[in-house]
């Protein structure tokens, strides 16, 4: 059984791991020796997790889903020693909406100058906002009542809003992504949302380039260049330089442009990591080789990172939120697999070590450095 007690000090790196049967936290002072803590919420799935140091907090947020008793977001201000509750389930669709929460897929910290604001993406697709550090949540009306809602349909994982990309310098602008539905952007603080999918392929529809309906798997950007978005699609790898108004294909040199996960480098807006998957029909790493691909030129070319990763008989799947980076320099990069392994790199992805090898199926990985850069979870 993993150690239940976590008492990190400033500078320690945390890797927060959500699985289908609970959450775990890996901690390390040097990113060489790691200690596994947990399980938290044994038996419940944790598809979203975050760590928030804004406003003087040391708050971990976990989206838990009991197979029987529903979903909620729980909070801990002592690194998992205690969690909020029992209480009302905090993420609830309003009466009259006709909707009921299935699961929270994403917890995203708000902007640095709004330390009490957080966002959650949920299934069925909707965006929720908290203005009190995650204690209470309310549906964002512009998405809740969006005219496209009747035509959004579930992907393989459910009809989920899984990606939230706030503009750090413009409180009125934010991009979101859902499966299926695609990308949407607001420029008026969430009142209205426009589909932003021009150039993104929908392989599974008669019209391959519809206004919306794409199955976008993940969108990332770097805060220093917020208008440049990178998108991992259900078939397709894209970049936009104008906040999603236009997308161009950047699948240059990858073994497959299918995949789920995507992570931008914490210090370089042109460096992005992905883990390609063979196909939608056979969702494993191509050629049974576990390879992280990295671009350092915004997608003009991609190169495999393999040192320390198994290069034969590796039938692995890495899901949309299971790839993360810390804010150290050089950056740490981490990912988890559906087979319960967690790998980490302390050198920008050049070399990898196995941090855990027998967890339940990993569905999300996030990272934070205690007391550094606001503790922002990558």
């Amino acid at each position, binding site marked *: 059984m993993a150690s239940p007690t976590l008492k990190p000090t400033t500078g320690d790196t945390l890797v927060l791991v959500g699985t289908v049967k609970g959450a775990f936290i890996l901690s390390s002072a040097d990113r060489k020796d790691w200690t596994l803590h947990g399980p938290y919420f044994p038996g419940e799935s944790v598809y979203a997790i975050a760590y928030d140091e804004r406003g003087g907090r040391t708050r971990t947020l976990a989206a838990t889903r009991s197979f029987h*008793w529903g979903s909620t977001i729980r909070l801990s201000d002592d690194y998992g020693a205690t969690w909020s509750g*029992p209480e009302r389930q905090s993420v609830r669709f309003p009466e009259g909406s006709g909707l009921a929460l299935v699961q929270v897929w994403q917890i995203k910290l708000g902007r640095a100058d709004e330390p009490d604001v957080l966002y959650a993406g949920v299934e069925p697709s909707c965006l929720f906002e908290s203005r009190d550090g995650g204690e209470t949540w309310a549906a964002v009306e512009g998405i809740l009542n969006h005219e496209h809602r009747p035509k959004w349909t579930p992907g393989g994982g459910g009809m989920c809003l899984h990606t939230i990309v706030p503009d750090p310098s413009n409180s009125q602008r934010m991009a979101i992504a859902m499966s299926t539905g695609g990308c949407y952007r607001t420029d008026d603080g969430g009142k209205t949302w426009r589909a932003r999918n021009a150039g993104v392929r929908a392989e599974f529809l008669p019209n391959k380039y519809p206004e919306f309906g794409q199955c976008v798997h993940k969108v990332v950007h770097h805060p220093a260049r917020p208008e440049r978005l990178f998108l991992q699609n259900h078939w397709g790898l894209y970049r936009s330089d104008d906040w999603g108004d236009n997308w161009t294909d950047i699948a240059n040199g990858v073994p497959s442009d299918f995949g789920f996960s995507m992570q931008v480098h914490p210090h370089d807006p042109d460096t992005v990591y992905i883990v390609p998957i063979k196909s939608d029909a056979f969702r494993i790493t191509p050629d049974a080789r576990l390879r992280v691909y990295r671009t350092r030129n915004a997608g003009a070319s991609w190169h495999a990172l393999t040192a320390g990763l198994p290069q034969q008989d590796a039938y692995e799947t890495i899901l949309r939120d299971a790839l993360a980076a810390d804010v150290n320099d050089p950056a740490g990069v981490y990912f988890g697999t559906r087979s319960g392994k967690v790998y980490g790199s302390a050198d920008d992805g050049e070399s990898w070590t196995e941090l855990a090898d027998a967890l339940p199926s990993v569905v999300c990985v996030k990272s934070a450095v205690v007391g550094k850069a606001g503790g922002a979870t990558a």
Partner: protein
Amino acid sequence: MSIAVVLPRALYPYARGSSTLTIDDRVSSVRDALSIVGQRWPAVLDRVMTERGEVREHVNIFVGEDSIRFGDGLATALEDGDTIMIVAAVSGG
């Protein structure tokens, strides 16, 4: 009138540690009884029913030994002295 609502262990924390809730109000159906549960122990009802007022997919409710799924659902009638049992379905991963 007295109706007992027997909880599964997982829900004890949401009922201040109680294993059984007692409803003394006049109720005529399971829906009525659960409405009282929602007023007095809202965290319990959150776990049993969705925002749409539906019993969660993997939760079973019995009146005596009969599942309401095979009766009249939430409209299943109650009589004084009945016991409602909330049970986690035999399911999971």
